[in-house]
């Protein structure tokens, strides 16, 4: 009896120890991946910051108005720091997912392949967003300067209209790229854009026909309106 009890106890202990010995590396793997993720993320962040600084990326963003756009959204950091932080979190999350995958859980099976499959869309969306914001700021700035120089009183309105037009277009493209409610985004964008155009057309037709006439006359017939007769050069 006591021998049987002893064997049962030993067997259970051995079994448990073996199971723990088998599971422990699996438990350690995620921790190791997390530590590696921290180190790799930090390294990638430093690398990005160095490269972006070497290419004077922040100055470039300032020139295209991205810096001021970030400031308007409440971001205190420079664009290069933001990209550095994003790259850190991207690398860290990749390692974290590898750690979860190492646990070999049924619930997280195939997660990595799904994430890796989604990564190109994610990167394309980030790039689209980046260049969309740049284009929006650049176009709005160009429109603002030209309309101010032409002494059009609604200069800021026109510039904002262009900025938001490009931003809405960018947002629709980003959401489509990410595959989020594709049909709804396309329909919403078409309705919004079409609606704005219709409103503008009606507004010009009803209220602004004289303004439109004057502008067209000035443009096409080169009619002089309040123009001084001096040559500047």
């Amino acid at each position, binding site marked *: 009896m006591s021998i049987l009890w002893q064997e049962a106890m030993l067997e259970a202990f051995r079994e448990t120890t073996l199971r723990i010995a088998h599971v422990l590396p699996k438990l350690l793997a995620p921790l190791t991946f997390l530590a590696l993720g921290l180190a790799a993320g930090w390294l990638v962040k430093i690398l990005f910051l160095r490269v972006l600084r070497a290419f004077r990326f922040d*100055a470039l963003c*300032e*020139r*295209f108005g991205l810096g*001021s756009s970030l400031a308007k959204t409440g971001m205190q950091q420079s664009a290069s720091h933001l990209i550095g932080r994003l790259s850190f979190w991207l690398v860290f999350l990749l390692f974290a997912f590898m750690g979860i995958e190492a646990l070999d859980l049924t619930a997280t099976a195939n997660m990595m392949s799904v994430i890796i499959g989604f990564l190109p869309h994610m990167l394309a969306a980030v790039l689209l967003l980046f260049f969309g914001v740049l284009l929006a700021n*650049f176009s709005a*700035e*160009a429109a*603002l*300067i*030209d309309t*101010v*120089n*032409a*002494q059009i*009183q609604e*200069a*800021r309105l026109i510039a904002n209209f262009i900025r938001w037009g490009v931003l809405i277009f960018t947002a629709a493209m980003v959401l489509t790229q990410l595959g989020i409610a594709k049909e709804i985004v396309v329909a919403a964008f078409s309705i919004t854009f079409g609606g704005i155009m219709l409103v503008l057309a009606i507004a010009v037709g009803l209220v602004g026909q004289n303004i439109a006439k004057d502008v067209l006359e*000035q443009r096409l017939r*080169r009619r*002089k309106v*309040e*123009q*001084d*007769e*001096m*040559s*500047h*050069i």
Partner: protein
Amino acid sequence: MTMTKTVWGQVREQLGDIGKIEVLVGIPTFNNAKTVEPVVNAVKAGLSKVCPPASVVVVNADAGSQDGTPETIKQAAGPDIRTAFVQHLADGFFPGPISLHALSESGVPGREHAFRAFFTVAEELQVQACVVVDANLRSLTSDWMEVLLRPVIEKGVDFVAPLFRRARYEGSLTNCIIYPLSRALYGKQMRYQSGGGYGFSGKLASLYLTKNVWEGEGAHYGIDSWLTTVAVAESCEVSQGFLGTKIHDGTLTGIELSLLLAQAVGALFHLMEAYQDVWEGSTGSSPVPQFGPPYEPGPEGGAVNVERMVRGFQQGLRDLLPIWEIILAPETLAGILPLGLVEAEEFRFPAALWVQTIYDFALAYHEKALYREHLLKSLTPLYLGRTASLVLETRAGTPEDVERVIETLCETFERMKPYLTQRWRFS
């Protein structure tokens, strides 16, 4: 290289085997059939006083006229003078509608290509002198050829810049920015009255061809500004020729003014980077020799709408402030802000503040603080403000008073040059 071969190939084909050519006359054109005939007649009459017709070749670089301009020139030139025609924009190149060089001061698109063609032919023919005259001029007389050619042929001058008798506030962009800034930078009192007519030595024509201004960023700006700047900065023998009154076709609207300003000022800022070593050490300024009749200030001009200019400045202050905050130093901006509250009649833009503004723009251009075309165009409302101030300060006075104000502004530019040099070194 391709351009060189194409242009010279076209000219050689038309002229055949020609003997020694002393003078090349270049006429850049674009739909100038209405005005070009008197120009060619005046050139012919003027050349006969200076050199034998056999030693002259007239080259027309046309940007694709649709009104028969080259044919008109051929007819007007007749058989006495050899003429050659170059289609400098024919090889599929045409400036885009939104690019800076879409328009030039003379109304000829891609004007720099025309000049490059003239200099290429001048180098190939090894001419002694080269004259370029605009085809849209209504005031060109036969005397112009003497004024532009004689200093080059007889006195060994490399560059004769045009100097015109202009109405009181004409050329205010030149008087408010181009002339004072370039005078302060390079130390030569060249009035920088661009366009109309130039005289070059064959040596200078060849020198221009070696400069890195024909392609890339430099080519986007107005050629007239850098023709003079290169001649001055390269320590060539420069002079001015008084050509009387300048009357030409074409007026400018608000948008075109900003483009013109970006072209002219951009060329100067661009060359500041190339010639940093030259201008950093230069102090004060000296006059340059002048040929032709003595210079005299112009008469009363057309109407100047000061209120519109002040409104333009104040709108700029209201709408472009975030952009100016990037470009201007805080103390400059602090000086400009109160001007937004002043009534049109009381409006004054102090000379020192204006100098500081221009130097800040030059520094911001150098630092690439903003996309450069935007930076240059955003100067337009400030320029309108300064011009309005100049008009308000002097409209009760004589034409000599205007000259005095311009002279004071030039001296202020020279006096405040350390403001620029010190900041430039650390930017």
